[in-house]
């Protein structure tokens, strides 16, 4: 997979590569536009969108602020239903827990439905190393698994593949005389993956929400593959981040509106699947064994941190990606981490600590569009600023960056200045790329490009503009 090997390159190098791929850029822009426009239409017709967002924020904030209670309640209820609950401090513990179940069952083939957390712990590589076949069954994930790549978008993982490439991948997987018609490609995938579901010993899924009051787990999908994964094999393993909890089913009603509307502009998700425990004694299908692995992996470090606790409110809808001018230009792979876009730029360095992703907070224009798109009102742009400050304090920035950062440290020091900068950044939301090159004129991205030898520098840099702005001038001039 690409993740491991890409750590050695910088976000800039990867962005540069992505920028040269015209198809990728067009595809990402097309999809993000489409999702963004659909979202605007659906939220407008739904009405009271701001009231719903506030609701969403309040519910998530309360849950996370009392997470020990609700997570404990969730686990107790799961156990009452007969599920096995495992707590994993880090990725390695989660992998061990999965491996133990696989070994105990003597499993040879596993089907999976799309799950970011399982990417986070790199479970596929570990299981494949043990000689277990792991098949991704979400259409987009299946495509990129055949291509041996990583997902490029939270919601649409194969956003960067065209239909010719998809046909070639399917032919390599056994398809004969396939056209490039969507209908034909889909039919092949349905047939192929059906065989996989029926032959699988174990199904692995993530979980969008765990409901504390009932111990239920809820998955949102459009294709229906998760229903196969969790109901056909005898054993079902759920790997979930410890923060995916909601106190009650009533709270789920709010999320069931916020999530699909924000993610894809759908009024409702096609399948909302709620499972409570393994199959009942009189049922004849559904898993007989249910294992739930609850993962920390750096999440608890954010608790009690006033600047970053709210990152755990995230419901992984991907709306912040679709509005991000940087993501729209460089696509998901350039982030070189499991979680791309603004949420990834915040989350990846936080979860991993250390220097590994310390350049990601710079892959942002701080325009605030992500915050405005976020259905649970996470102030991602503020967090990106705080993260830059911390990276610099820790001395993680590279020398050139530290030089470039001096100007921003000055800027971030006073809230008034920062607000001004954000206001100014907003007025710069126009196209950042011209003739295939970034034309960043605003401070942070200007600094990012300047220190990284990126072509086409701004006509007027942020610092050129600064004295003028401080005197109340307009950045558009």
């Amino acid at each position, binding site marked *: 997979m690409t993740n491991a090997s890409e750590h050695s390159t910088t976000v800039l190098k990867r962005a540069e590569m992505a920028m040269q791929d015209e198809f990728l850029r067009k595809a990402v822009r097309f999809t993000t536009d489409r999702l963004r426009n659909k979202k605007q239409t659906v939220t407008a017709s739904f009405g009271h969108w701001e*009231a*719903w967002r506030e*609701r969403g924020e309040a*519910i998530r904030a*309360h849950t996370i602020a*009392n997470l*020990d*209670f609700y*997570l404990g309640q969730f686990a107790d209820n799961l156990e009452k239903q007969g599920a096995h*609950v495992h*707590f994993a*401090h880090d990725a390695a*513990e989660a992998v061990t827990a999965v491996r133990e179940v696989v070994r105990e069952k003597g499993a040879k083939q596993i089907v999976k439905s799309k799950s970011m957390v399982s990417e986070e712990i790199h479970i596929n590589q570990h299981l494949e190393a043990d000689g277990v076949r792991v098949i991704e*069954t979400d*259409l*987009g994930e299946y*495509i990129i698994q055949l291509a041996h790549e990583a997902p490029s978008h939270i919601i*649409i*993982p*194969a956003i960067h593949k065209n239909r010719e490439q998809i046909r070639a991948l399917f032919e390599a997987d056994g398809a004969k005389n396939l056209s490039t018609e*969507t209908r034909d490609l*889909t039919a092949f*995938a*349905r047939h192929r993956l059906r065989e996989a579901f*029926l032959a699988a010993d174990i199904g692995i899924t993530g979980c969008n929400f765990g409901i504390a009051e*009932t111990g239920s787990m809820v998955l949102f999908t459009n*294709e*229906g593959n998760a*229903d*196969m994964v969790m*109901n056909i094999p005898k054993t079902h393993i759920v790997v979930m981040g410890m923060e995916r909890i909601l106190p*009650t*089913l*009533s*709270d*789920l*009603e*709010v999320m*069931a*509106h916020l999530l699909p509307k924000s993610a894809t502009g759908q*009024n*409702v*998700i*096609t*399948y*909302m*699947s*709620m*499972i*409570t*425990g393994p199959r*009942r004694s*009189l*049922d*004849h*299908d*559904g898993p007989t064994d249910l294992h739930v692995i609850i993962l*920390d992996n750096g999440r608890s470090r954010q*608790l*009690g941190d006033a600047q970053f606790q709210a990152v755990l409110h995230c419901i992984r809808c991907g709306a912040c990606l679709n509005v991000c001018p940087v993501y729209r230009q460089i696509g998901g792979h350039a982030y070189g981490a499991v979680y791309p876009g603004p949420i990834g730029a915040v989350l990846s360095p936080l979860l991993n600590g250390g220097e590994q992703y310390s350049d990601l907070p710079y892959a942002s224009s701080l325009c605030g569009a992500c915050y405005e798109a976020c259905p649970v009102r996470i102030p991602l742009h503020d967090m990106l600023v705080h993260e830059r400050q911390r990276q610099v304090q820790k001395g993680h920035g590279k020398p050139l960056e530290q030089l470039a950062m001096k100007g921003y440290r000055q800027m971030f020091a006073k809230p008034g200045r920062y607000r001004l900068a954000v206001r100014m950044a907003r007025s710069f939301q126009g196209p950042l790329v011209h003739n295939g090159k970034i034309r960043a004129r605003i401070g942070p991205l200007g600094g990012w490009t300047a220190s990284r030898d990126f072509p086409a520098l701004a006509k007027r840099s942020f610092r050129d503009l600064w004295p003028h702005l401080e005197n109340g001038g307009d950045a558009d001039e």
Partner: protein
Amino acid sequence: MNKTTFLTNIASRLGRTTTQSPNPRQIVGAPEFWIHRQKSEAERVALFREQFEALGGEFEQFSTESALSTRLAELLDDLAPQQIGAWGPHAAWPVNVEDVLTSYHALRWAPGMTPHAFANVQASVTGCAYAIADTGSIVMTSGPEQGRSVHIMPLIHIVLMRAHQIRLRLGEVFDEVKSGLRSSDGHHELPASVHFVSGPSRSSDIENDQSIGVHGPARVIVLLLE
């Protein structure tokens, strides 16, 4: 890592202790304006239909059980599936169509059935627990005669329902599944699976082109009895 250590770490980071109850909260669930809406049964049926059709679902309405049965038989003739599947005879059928299912030799969900047995079923006939007008959703609950495989596996899913099963919003369904189903010892016992289905299976993973039926049913047809 054990549960206690895991939860204690979380609590201490939050400045709490694990024995503490959560802080009281003002905000639970959907906004009041949403909860307090009222609609008559006829309005709920109309809204369900509008929403369900917008999702690509098909909807037909009947005023008698015999008219619905006749239409079901006609539909099965038209579709001519090689294998028809259906819930078991003692499942919570909202409409009685046993005659039709028997004459079409439907494979019935019963003890000993597995997903594999239903792998070649092309069209299934089931009831449902509820429907939701706001979102055009059908609510499927699992049980001994209501296998999940019956409705997730086939290409075509025919759902029978009655008008009175349609609720306005999702939250009402949650309240009812929670309070309606208690096990003998009194604790909440939800069905192992509660599945909210809103139209046919869809994907936009190939160049953003909408494709239908990639995993689940490609057609979902509701026959409603008033």
